[in-house]
C-alpha cells in the first residue's frame, strides 16, 4: 500500500500544529486592519493553545480538525469548542465550530467538505456555528447542515437617534475620505445633542429615561448558576455551566475590549429577588453589542427596559444583539427593528429533534453560548 493512501488527510489538531494554524489564521481569516481584531500575530499561538486545549470543556473525543496534504503541509482547519447542554432535560454534547478555513490554492481539493464531513460524523449531539458567512452556509448545507433563519437575525435599538445618524454617516464619510463631513459633524455636535434632547421630549416612549422597579448590581457567577435553570426552564435546549467554565467565559469576554467595556448587570426587585441580568459591551458614542439577556417570567420587558436605559446613561447611541426568539415580542414592542446583517447560525445534528427545537426558537442560545467569546 502506498504511504499516501494510508494517511488520512483529516486528523485531530495537536499542539504541534499550532504554529502552522496560527499562520493560516493570520493570513486567511483575520482582518488586516489592526483595529478589526484583538490579538496581534504573535499572540495567536497562545490564543489557540488556551482556547482549544486549555478550555474548561476540553474533550479529547471532540478535537478540532486539520486537513493535511500529502506533502505534510496543513491546508485546512476547523476549530471546535465543546459545550455542555441539556436537551429536554437530558445532557447533550454540543460543539461550536469556528475558524473554518482552507488555503485558497487548495479549495478545489474539497478539503473543506472533507473537514465538515469528518466533523458531522463525530460523537457530538449537536454542532453549530453562529459566525458563518454565505460561502460557509453553502458548504454546510451541501454536507447536511441547515440554517436557522430565526437565530440568524439581529435586532437593533436606537437610543440617541441624531447621534446615531451622525455616527453612521461619519463612517460613510470616513470611508469616502470626506474630511469636510467629519469637520462639519464636530462643529454641529451641540446641535446633535439638542436634537436628541428634543427627540426624548417628543417621543418619550422611545428615547427617555425609564424609571425601573429594579436595582442594579454587578452580575456574579453564582447568580447565573443559581437562576439560569429557572430562567431557561421550559426551553428544550439550554446550556449548563459550572463556576469554572462560566468564570472562564466572563474572563474571555472581558478581554474583548474592541467592542467596548464589558458590562455584567444583575437586577433585583424590591424584595431582593433576582429578576434578570444582561451582558453587553458598552461603547460610548457608538453601537453597543448585547451578548445575553435573561429574565424571569413576566419580567422580560422591565429587564430589557433597564438594559436600554443603562446603555443610554452610559453614552451609547444604539444597541444591537442577536435575536433571542423568546424576547421577540418585548423587543418589537420597545421599538427595535431587525435585520439579517452579519453572521449566520448553521447547525447539524443526527437527532432531528434538536435542530427542530432551534428552528422553532425553543432554545436558550445566546451569543455567550456561541463563538463570540472564543474568537481572537
Amino acid at each position: 500500500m502506498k504511504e499516501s493512501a494510508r494517511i488520512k488527510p483529516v486528523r485531530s489538531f495537536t499542539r504541534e500544529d499550532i504554529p502552522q494554524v496560527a499562520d493560516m489564521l493570520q493570513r486567511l481569516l483575520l482582518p488586516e486592519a489592526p483595529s478589526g481584531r484583538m490579538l496581534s500575530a504573535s499572540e495567536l499561538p497562545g490564543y489557540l493553545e488556551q482556547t482549544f486545549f486549555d478550555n474548561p470543556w476540553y474533550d479529547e473525543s471532540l478535537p478540532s480538525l486539520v486537513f493535511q496534504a500529502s506533502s505534510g503541509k496543513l491546508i485546512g482547519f476547523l476549530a471546535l469548542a465543546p459545550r455542555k447542554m441539556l436537551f429536554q432535560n437530558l445532557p447533550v454534547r454540543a460543539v461550536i465550530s469556528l475558524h473554518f478555513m482552507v488555503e485558497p490554492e487548495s479549495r478545489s481539493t474539497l478539503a473543506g467538505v472533507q473537514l465538515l464531513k469528518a466533523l458531522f460524523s463525530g460523537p457530538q449531539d449537536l454542532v453549530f456555528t453562529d459566525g458563518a458567512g454565505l460561502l460557509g452556509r453553502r458548504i454546510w448545507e451541501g454536507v447536511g447542515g441547515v440554517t436557522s433563519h430565526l437565530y440568524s437575525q439581529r435586532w437593533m435599538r436606537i437610543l440617541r437617534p441624531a447621534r446615531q445618524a451622525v455616527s453612521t454617516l461619519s463612517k460613510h464619510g470616513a470611508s469616502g475620505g470626506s474630511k469636510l463631513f467629519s469637520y462639519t459633524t464636530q462643529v454641529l455636535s451641540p446641535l446633535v445633542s439638542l436634537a436628541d434632547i428634543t427627540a426624548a421630549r417628543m417621543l418619550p416612549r422611545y428615547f427617555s429615561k425609564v424609571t425601573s422597579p429594579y436595582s442594579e448590581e454587578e452580575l456574579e457567577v453564582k447568580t447565573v448558576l443559581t437562576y439560569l435553570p429557572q430562567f431557561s426552564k421550559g426551553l428544550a435546549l439550554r446550556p449548563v455551566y459550572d463556576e469554572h467554565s462560566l468564570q472562564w467565559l466572563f474572563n474571555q469576554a472581558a478581554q474583548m475590549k474592541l467592542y467596548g467595556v464589558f458590562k455584567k448587570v444583575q437586577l433585583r426587585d424590591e424584595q431582593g429577588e433576582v429578576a434578570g441580568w444582561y451582558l453587553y459591551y458598552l461603547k460610548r458614542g457608538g453601537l453597543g453589542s448585547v451578548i445575553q439577556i435573561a429574565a424571569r417570567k413576566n419580567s422580560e420587558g422591565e429587564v430589557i427596559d433597564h438594559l436600554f436605559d443603562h446603555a443610554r446613561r452610559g453614552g451609547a447611541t444604539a444597541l444591537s444583539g442577536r435575536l433571542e426568539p423568546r424576547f421577540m415580542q418585548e423587543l418589537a414592542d420597545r421599538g427595535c427593528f431587525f435585520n439579517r446583517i452579519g453572521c449566520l447560525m448553521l447547525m447539524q445534528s443526527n437527532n432531528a429533534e434538536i435542530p427542530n427545537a432551534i428552528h422553532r426558537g425553543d432554545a436558550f442560545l445566546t451569543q455567550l453560548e456561541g463563538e463570540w467569546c472564543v474568537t481572537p
Partner: protein
Amino acid sequence: MNRIRPFVEDDIEQVSDLHWRVFDGASIPAPQKPASELRQSYTDYFERVFLRNPWRDDALPSLVHEGTDGRITGFLGVLPRRMLLDGMPVCVALSSQFIVDPNSRALGAGVGLLKAFLTGPQDLSLTDEANNASRKLWEGLGGSTALLYSVQWTRLLRPSRFVVSHFEGRGALSLLASASKPLCNLLDAALARKSPHRFRQTEPKVSGEELNADGLLACLSEFSGSRSLWPEYDEYSLKWLLETITRQTRRGALRKVAIHNSRWEVIGWYLYYLNPRGLSQVVQLVAKKNSIGEVLDHLFYDAWLNGSIAVSGRLEPPFMQAFSDRHCYFNCGQPWMLIHSHNPDILRAFHRGDALLSPLEGEMCMRFT
C-alpha cells in the same frame, strides 16, 4: 345556558352589531346600531366570506357563542382552505374576526370559541393577523407561534418622505409634514445620488407581464415543489380570492406581475397593493431560488416608478438573505401567525420556513373593509 354552535345566515344581524360595537363603535352604547348602508355592507361581507366562499365545508363552520339569553356574545370566523404537504392534501381552517363581547370575556366566551375551533377536524388551524392577547390564548390551548412568518420586511424607496409620513394625521405635525414634502423630495434625490445602490432604482434586466388568475394558477402549479407546504387552488377559488382582495381598494390598486427571464421563462411573480405616495404592501412574492434578487429588484423598481415611498411584506424565510442584501429591514411582533396541528411535519414546515404562506393564503381576504 351558554353554547357554541355553527354560524348561520340568521346570525348575520347580531354578529354585525357585535362586530360594529367591538371594532367600530366601542364608545357607543350597546343598543345603538350601525347605519343602514353599513349594515348592508356587513350583510354582504358575512354572507360572501363566511357563507358563500369557494371552500365552504359544513364540517368547518364559523362559530358563534350564545349567552344564556340566546344573544350572540362571540364570533369566530372560519374559512376552510386547502394545502399540500409534500404532495399530500392538508385541510386547513383559517380563523379570523375573533370577536367577543367585552362583557362576556370574563365568562370564557373567547376560550370556549377557540377551544371548539381548535378541536375541529382540520389538519391545520391557522391565523395570521393575531394580537398579543390572541397569541397568549392560542399558546395556552396548545398552539404555537410561527415566529419566522411573523416577520415583516420593509424597503425604503424615498426615505425622507417615509420618515415624514409618520407625522401625517398628527395635528400640527401634519402641517409640518405637508410643508416639508418639497424639501423631502430634494433630500431623497440627493440620497439617490449619494447612495445609488441603496436608494436609486434602476430599470430591471428582467421583464414583467400582467398576471391574471389563470396565469397565477399555472405559476403556482409550476413552482409547487419548491416548499414542503404549498397552497392548493383551482380556477374558481383563485378567481374568487383575487376578486375579493381586488375589492379592498383602500390599500391601493392590486398589481399582479409575472417576471420572465431572457428565455421568457417565469422566474417568479409578485402581487401587491400599489400605494402611490405611500407604503405599498406585498400580497404574495414567489421566485426561483436563484432569481429572487431579480424579482425583488423588479418589484422595487415598479413601486418606485409609480410613486411609492416604501414597500413592505411578510418575510419569505428562504429569501431572508436576499431581502437583507437589498437593504430591507425587518419588523417582528404582532400581527402574529399562530398555528395548531397534531401533525409534527406540518409544524416543522412552518418552524424551518418551508411553507408558502403569504397574505394571499391568510386573513387578508377576510378583512371587513
